């Protein structure tokens, strides 16, 4: 057992740690959620992380995006993630993809992955990603944030949860987010992902809604 994963033991079995090293995950987005997802997956010890984002860092990202700093302003988020990966855990195979997830590239981007993590910031891209996951038969771990609130869910192929939580006509009016909301949401997603990848019992199709202002966790569906 690699010493760097020793403290995983007790929470995970040695066999589960070895299983995680065989898994490939796709992270859609390297911004607020994506930066923390990548950090947690690197330290957890998954085998391969593919992370896509076509954006570059801007000043308004600095209040919450782990990979942003005054030094990375104007730089590719995916490339910043690759530098972080090489620094934190060079044993993880990290594939940076400086592209947005689109209708045209989604199927190719997620091909061969064991799980897809949603760190996107808009409803349209989430619908594209969810459809691609269903077509490729890959589970998607949804995550989203707004202000003091975070939500996460494991969506199995064929489940229409994304359409139910973002019905036609609904719009995102607030871009508010605080420094602690993305890591909280990412933690829920990576915990769910760990259970999924290690084959532990898991309730899928359930939406976990966290309110950090009132300290409430509600589960729906």
């Amino acid at each position: 057992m690699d010493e760097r994963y020793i403290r995983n033991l007790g929470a995970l079995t040695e066999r589960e740690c070895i299983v995680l090293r065989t898994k490939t995950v796709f992270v859609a987005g390297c911004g607020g959620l994506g930066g923390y997802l990548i950090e947690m997956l690197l330290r957890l010890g998954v085998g391969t992380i593919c992370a896509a984002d076509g954006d570059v860092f801007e000043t308004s990202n600095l209040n919450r995006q782990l990979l942003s700093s005054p030094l990375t302003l104007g730089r590719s988020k995916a490339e910043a993630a690759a530098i972080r990966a090489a620094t934190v855990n060079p044993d993880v195979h990290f594939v940076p993809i400086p592209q947005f997830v689109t209708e045209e590239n989604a199927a190719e981007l997620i091909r061969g992955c064991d799980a897809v993590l949603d760190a996107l910031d808009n409803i349209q891209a989430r619908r594209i990603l969810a459809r691609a996951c269903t077509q490729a038969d890959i589970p998607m771990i949804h995550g989203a944030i707004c202000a003091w609130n975070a939500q996460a869910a494991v969506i199995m192929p064929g489940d229409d949860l994304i359409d139910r939580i973002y019905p036609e006509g609904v719009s995102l009016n607030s871009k508010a987010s605080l420094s602690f909301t993305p890591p909280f949401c990412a933690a829920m997603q990576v915990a769910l992902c760990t259970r999924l990848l290690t084959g532990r019992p898991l309730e899928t199709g359930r939406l976990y809604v966290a309110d950090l202002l009132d300290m409430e966790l509600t589960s729906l569906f």
Partner: protein
Amino acid sequence: MIEVRFFATLRTDRGKITQVPAEEVSTAGDLLRRFEIPAEEVAILLINGFHSKPEDAVKDGDVISLFPPVGGG
């Protein structure tokens, strides 16, 4: 009475929970209008825990839960 539970940003200026006399509303949409919540600002509308729509009827004893869209990343 009908119990209305607000979640996340819908709690701003409305609180967490309130009661509405059943005779004053007939649909979930009536409740949205009463609390001045535009339909596009409600992502999930539950009546007694079941996924519902604004046009669905509400009655005495029902519990309505309203969640705004949470979509940042």
